[in-house]
């Protein structure tokens, strides 16, 4: 559950009984903000969500002070790196430090709240960040760079349907033999998975 717009934060099921008012939302790590509320489920990636909000603050920063002008840009770049599976082990420590410093040193309310989506998702969904960085996977299946379409050779009957819909010719295999996807070509459009009548294609 996300409240308060781009400067707000994310709440989890343990906050379900929180009264929706200024003080309680602030105490739980989010805010009333614009009064907006977005409900998300396990198919929504929290890292991507934080990145989405940072895109907004990078746009909105006026540029007067260094932590907000450069810091938010860097936060966004780091989140981007995480969703692309290119982050290293130290990334999460750096991310948290940077978010805290931007909050602590920015000149106005925009910079003082812009790292909230990052901090609250890190606090409430640490495992999601961990899986992205350490296992190179996106649990919600939203970060395309971390997804792999795979054909289960036991389930594939070799009907060739998938290879005919693939827009980039990533699937090869002879008729009636199991097909394979070349993940270096695959653009992760999902068309093959929709077409397969035998449930042989899955995302990992």
């Amino acid at each position, binding site marked *: 559950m996300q409240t308060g717009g781009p400067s707000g934060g994310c709440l989890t099921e343990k906050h379900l009984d929180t009264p929706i008012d200024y003080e309680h939302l602030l105490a739980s790590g989010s805010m009333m903000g614009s009064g907006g509320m977005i409900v998300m489920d396990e198919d929504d990636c929290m890292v991507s969500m934080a990145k989405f909000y940072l895109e907004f603050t990078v746009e*909105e920063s006026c*540029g007067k*002070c*260094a932590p907000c002008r450069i810091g938010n840009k860097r936060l966004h770049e780091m989140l981007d790196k995480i969703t692309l599976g290119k982050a290293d082990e130290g990334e999460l420590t750096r991310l948290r*430090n*940077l978010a805290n410093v931007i909050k*602590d040193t920015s*000149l106005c309310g925009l910079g003082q709240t812009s790292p909230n989506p990052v901090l609250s998702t890190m606090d409430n969904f640490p495992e999601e960040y961990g899986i992205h960085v350490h296992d190179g996977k996106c649990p919600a299946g939203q970060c395309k760079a971390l997804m792999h379409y795979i054909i289960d050779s036991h389930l594939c009957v070799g009907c060739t349907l998938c290879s005919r819909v693939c827009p980039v010719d990533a699937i090869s295999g002879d008729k009636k033999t199991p097909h394979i996807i070349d993940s270096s070509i695959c653009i992760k459009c999902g068309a093959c998975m929709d077409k397969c009548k035998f449930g042989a294609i899955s995302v990992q």
Partner: protein
Amino acid sequence: MDIVKLTIDDKTLVVEKGTTLLEAAKTIGINIPSLCYMKLEDLNFENKPGGCRVCVVEVEGRRNLAPACKTVCEEGMKVQTHTVRVVNARRTVMELILSDHPAECLTCAKSGECDLQTVAQKLGIREIHYQGEQSHYKGDKSPAIIRDMDKCIMCRRCETVCNEVQTVGVLSAINRGFEAVVAPAFEMDLDHSTCTYCGQCVAVCPTGALTERDYTWKVIEALVDPTKTVVVQTAPAVRAALGESFGMEPGTLVTGKMVTALRKLGFDYVFDTDFAADLTIMEEGAEILDRLSKHLSGDKEVKLPILTSCCPGWVSFLEHNFADMKDVPSTAKSPQQMFGAIAKSYLAKKLGVKREDMVVVSVMPCLAKKYECTREEFSVNGDPDVNMSISTRELAQLIRNANIDFKQLTDEEFDNPMGESTGASVIFGTTGGVIEAAVRTAYELYTKKELKKVDFEELRGMDGIRQATG
């Protein structure tokens, strides 16, 4: 005097109300690092946008860190200037600033006297943990100033000086967020703006974002060219400023050593601009007299009062802002151009050198002179009267390049005939000095008598309108 009592790093102190934490800490020997903050003591002028956030400190009871340069001391305040939280924040912010800055110190004109470099060293930055995209802006090379905004840290000092001190109003922050930068409107080049090339923005820029256009290489090229006769003129201010570059007391007069150094560098003739300053004064004096007598004989068209015209920065300020008053200043050329014109006509003829084989270099204390010598009206068939103007700093650079031990030099004299000058031009350097010298000349021209001692001090001062009566 209202006072407040507070503690900084557990030391109790009492300061005048309105004092900032930065100043208060300084009184007890705590130097909080700062970057964007600037105080021009002489003008009592401050730049404190609170933009760099390098000066942050911890104030008890405050949610976030406070910028020391902008936060005013309050009764009972408890301030910590070097907690882990503070030091970490400062370093992180500094790393952010450096992450958006080209690592070009080795070849940067500002290296060694760059505030960004100094503060980064002071904070002990050895690694930049937050790397990413860097902002890039178009370069801008005017005859006097080079703007390399990739090196700009948005301290806004230049903007403050240009708008509020010089009142020219060329620079302002444009764009937003990561793309924000200080530039003339529409990111125009300085050349197309109303910039006067006063150079004050360059003087206050803490980084290599704004630097003077360097002509030292062009000077060397002329000096080594055997077909060229290279003539140099030095402005009065240079002899007083040059010594400082070689570790001498600021203000030490090094006229003789400077002349020797210039000869050693290979200049064929070394002259004093003072000579031409005398000519400017005579011209201006004659012009006052002319305008006055026309006025007295009933000519209502004649423009009075007369304004001096020897500062190219001032001339372009007038051209840009008071185009309808262009006929008010004197029509006399500035001493630099007066000298150039005479060198390339009278002197060239006397030496039997063709105009195009003579190169005139000027050493000047101000950047507007670099621009002035590129003005079209100061050239003949595309050949400028003054080929290039270098600053005191550039001259020091040339001397160092040539391995000349400046302090050990013996004294030599300026060349004649243009090395002569009267006393009048010695007062040139002071504000209002020109008009005093001009009035003196006018008096002497008119009465054919030498003016003994008249107190022209009011013409020289800075306070309000100047007058002299006799």
